């Protein structure tokens, strides 16, 4: 009889002790969860894109209650920021709508393929093989890793390069994280001029591999009245903070590397 009762008693006692310990611990070490976190989480779009800089919508909801700014949700824009601000009782501040731009215009009309790439059809794989199939090693690879990442259908492959549809883009930045050549940048949607090239090669070489590449001629820099356009390391850059959207740089650009696009619908630009 003892061979049955003793083991039962031993396990019972150990189980009871652990149970009591857990019960006491959960009482003593209880952490109050803020109900505002759930409320903020409900207001957020739930795309878990990470544009706010937190791990996802849950992460941002917790951070916002913990004191982070209420206007970090870029896909949600001003509307969500206002609601979050209301829940937390703080001023939501202004939300700058963002949009993605592709710093490459090397489509099939202006550049050439230098190899018949037969590997896996992803940009990541293609880029790891002699820096891609195009003559320019900085070019868009055209297999659409960014397209697969976009939850809003705002980016597509046209003429073998990625093109952003500004009316659909919310500026979450998921595509920018995917691009192995780091061609995609998130800029304020008010900025209309951007440099559609990422080549830091010398002008002569760039001209050889791509008809639409930036050759670093500095015409944009000279023509820019506000000092927004600068040529750094053989590549033009436009500072969206200084840019007044006059469009002079795009007119002056001899290769068409600077593009001047229509304003995003719903912005005042």
């Amino acid at each position, binding site marked *: 009889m003892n061979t049955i009762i*003793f083991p039962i008693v*031993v*396990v019972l006692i150990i189980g009871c002790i*652990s149970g009591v310990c*857990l019960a006491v*611990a959960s009482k003593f*070490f*209880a952490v109050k969860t803020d109900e505002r976190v759930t409320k903020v989480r409900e207001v957020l779009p739930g795309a878990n894109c990470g544009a706010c800089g937190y791990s996802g919508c849950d992460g941002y909801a917790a951070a916002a209650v913990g004191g982070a700014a209420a206007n970090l949700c870029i896909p949600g824009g001003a509307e969500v920021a206002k609601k979050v601000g209301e829940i937390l009782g703080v001023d939501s501040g202004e939300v700058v709508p963002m949009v993605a731009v592709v710093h490459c215009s090397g489509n099939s009309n202006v550049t050439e393929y230098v190899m018949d790439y037969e590997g896996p059809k992803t940009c*990541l*794989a293609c880029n790891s093989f002699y820096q891609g199939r195009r003559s320019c090693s900085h070019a868009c690879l055209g297999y659409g890793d960014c397209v697969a990442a976009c939850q809003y259908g705002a980016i597509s492959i046209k003429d073998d390069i990625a093109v952003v549809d500004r009316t659909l883009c919310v500026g979450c930045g998921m595509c920018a994280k995917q691009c192995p050549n780091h061609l995609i940048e998130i800029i304020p949607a008010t900025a209309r001029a951007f440099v559609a090239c990422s080549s830091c090669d010398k002008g002569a070489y760039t001209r050889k591999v791509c008809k639409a590449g930036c050759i670093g001629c500095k015409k944009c820099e000279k023509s820019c009245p506000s000092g927004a356009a600068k040529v750094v390391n053989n590549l033009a850059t436009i500072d969206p903070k200084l840019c007044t959207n006059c469009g002079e740089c795009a007119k002056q650009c001899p290769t068409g590397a600077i593009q001047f696009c229509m304003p995003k619908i719903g912005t005042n630009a």
Partner: protein
Amino acid sequence: MKGFLMILVGAVLVNNFVLSKFMGICPFLGVSKKLDSATGMSVAVIFVMTMATAVTYPIYTYILFPNFTYLRTLVFILVIAALVQLVEIILKKFIPALHSTLGIYLPLITTNCAVLGVTVLNIEEQYNFAESIVNSIGAGIGFLVAMVLFNGVRQRIEGNDIPKTFEGLPSILIAASIVSLAFMGFSGVVEGLFA
């Protein structure tokens, strides 16, 4: 000191829990996809293995030995499960940063065979308390090494054209077996190192 080092290196390389003893395969295959989750999981494993050994060793030596040694598995599972819950509650209260890093992985490894395995093996090998702790830390580090290495292998596999039949888990299991084969090369290394 030499004895401890031998146990530690032996547990990390030669008797690697995942690759030579084939324990903890579930998290090994499940969480090795991304580097940050792989390391997060591994750190949690190191932590839980050490804690579990520290608790189960005295329970075995002072309560179960010598009459109830056959209750070992049952009692260990019970104690480890309770312990992990307790640790989670305490971490949440006092070290929220660590809790959010280990957070989701802690309950996952509560009932992991690698954790139970290390506590049982410590007793089988007749280690004393200090040796048991060192062996557990080594086993945890071994898990980390296996996870990080295999994460690299997996990232290489991911971008490839794999025949339909082998897509997903089959190709990964084959890769795991090759990595495990490579670890066979470590047998005898410890004796050579500390000879």
